[in-house]
């Protein structure tokens, strides 16, 4: 019984630790700029993009390899979108509509 209890406890702690390791950060599109120009993440982390402007945005994520490209589609004012960074490497994020809305992400 103590062995089973210890195993279960270790398993639960593992889940909690794993869940805590995957963090989510929020980046706003505010005044036609991202609220931060760069971010450093761990594999599996997520960014939530919040459109704080009163016009449509269109986030596009490039990387980590030259062939990787994900278009998150049109994002209305007030809407949020999220993206999980599953691969290590460097990413470039920009708005297809507003070239000034851009940031760099490094995933370790």
């Amino acid at each position: 019984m103590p062995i089973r209890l210890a195993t279960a406890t270790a398993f639960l702690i593992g889940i909690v630790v794993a869940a805590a390791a995957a963090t989510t950060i929020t980046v706003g599109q505010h005044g036609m700029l991202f609220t931060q120009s760069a971010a450093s993440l761990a594999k599996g982390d997520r960014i939530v993009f919040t459109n704080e402007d009163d016009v449509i945005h269109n986030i596009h994520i490039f990387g980590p390899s030259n062939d990787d490209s994900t278009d998150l589609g049109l994002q209305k004012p007030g809407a949020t979108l999220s993206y999980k960074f599953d691969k290590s490497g460097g990413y470039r994020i920009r708005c297809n509509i507003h070239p000034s809305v851009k940031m760099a992400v490094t995933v370790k």
Partner: protein
Amino acid sequence: MRDKTTALRASIEVGSNFHCGWPVAVVLCGSGYSILLLLSAALGARQALAVPAFAAQTSQPCATCHIGSFGPQLTPQGRDFKLHGYIASDGKDHGLPVAATTQTSFTHTESSRRGGAAPDFRPNDNLAIDQVAAFYAGRITPEVGGFIKLRYSGVRQQGQVGSVDIRHARDGELFGQGVLWGLTANNSPTVQDPWNSTPAWGFPYVRSGLASTPTATPLVAGRLSQRVAGVGAYMLWNDLVYWEADVYKGLNTEALSWVGQVPFDGNDRTTTVMPYGRLALIRDWQSHHAEIGAFAMSANVIPGRNQTSGIGTRKTDTAFDATYQYISDPTKVTSDRLSAHATYIHETARTEASSTPALAQASLVHPLDTARVDISYSFAATVTPSIQYFRTTGTADVKYWGTPNGSPNSDGMIFEVAYVPWGKPDSPFANVNVRLTAQYVNYFTFNGSSTNTRGNNNFFFGFQTAMKL
């Protein structure tokens, strides 16, 4: 699409028969407005857009890129879109990026112009269809975008190729910092510039074609517009330094005729190669944008009003400019915006030494200095009052400037209020925008004279429309 194109053609044909002098003006202009209203009604109800083809391509309202919700005054986003080659897009298929604009107006000058303000116009109080224009504005290929304007002038009663700017741009890195570089092919020095403190897109953004304007104008301030073809390269490094170099070639007589220009008019003539350079420093912080820069151009020309009896003149223009913009709430394209511009151009015109009797008494060097300062405040991207002071000074020479006392000096002020009801995120009409402008031009000095200048003062009431086809 074919129906809309046909409608545009009909509109242009109406414009081409328009003279709009009294008394036929009211009837014909009435017909023109009816057609515009029918076109507007036919275009359905969605968000209203700016050069509407650009706006449709990006799903943005006019106010995103234009202060006052109507071109050509650019916001930081408008400059960014232009510098990136007009290709930013929402990824949807909006058809060909074709748009149409019209400009109709009423002009009253304080003194009537004997013989009419222009051929087929009355001496004063004229209604006019100043311009009907069609644009290709947006992506040409995924990597190349452009702005190509074809226009019909109801004052000159002539069709022309208007402003052209075709671009390719890329983002990269230089010295560890971001760099945007690009190539441009255009037909007018400064038409490619993204700041409204250079001549091609400077204030006033609309003015009467039927009121007198001062004779003396520097080369770079429009004397070569649409009369040259040029290519250039530009670079914006670290969002701090903007650099550009272009080379232009004057069109020959045949080419000028082909693009709808009058080969021998008041503009300078040249078929030589001309260099143009531009350098600017920019800074964006919080709600502010500031730019300070310089540009220069040099060319061998034959001055346009035959003031050198056809003898070549080397004109060299050196200019300095500055722009400041304050955006009260950057998250709202309809927030109030303050905008100010300053431009100073120094021109040296050096006429070739000659024993020609016509020039024997004339000076061979003609300096000209022009300065302009304007400020505007756009309330909710809807009502935009503006004011400008302008001044031109130079050395007197009756033969060269052709003014009564030989002086090229002019100065005065322009007062304007523009009203744009649409072009905002919540506007009711799809692909359509309009601007109403009331403008008063007041001269203190006109062509060297500070007496009897009031007759050149003028009221201008303009009505512009813009729609995506």
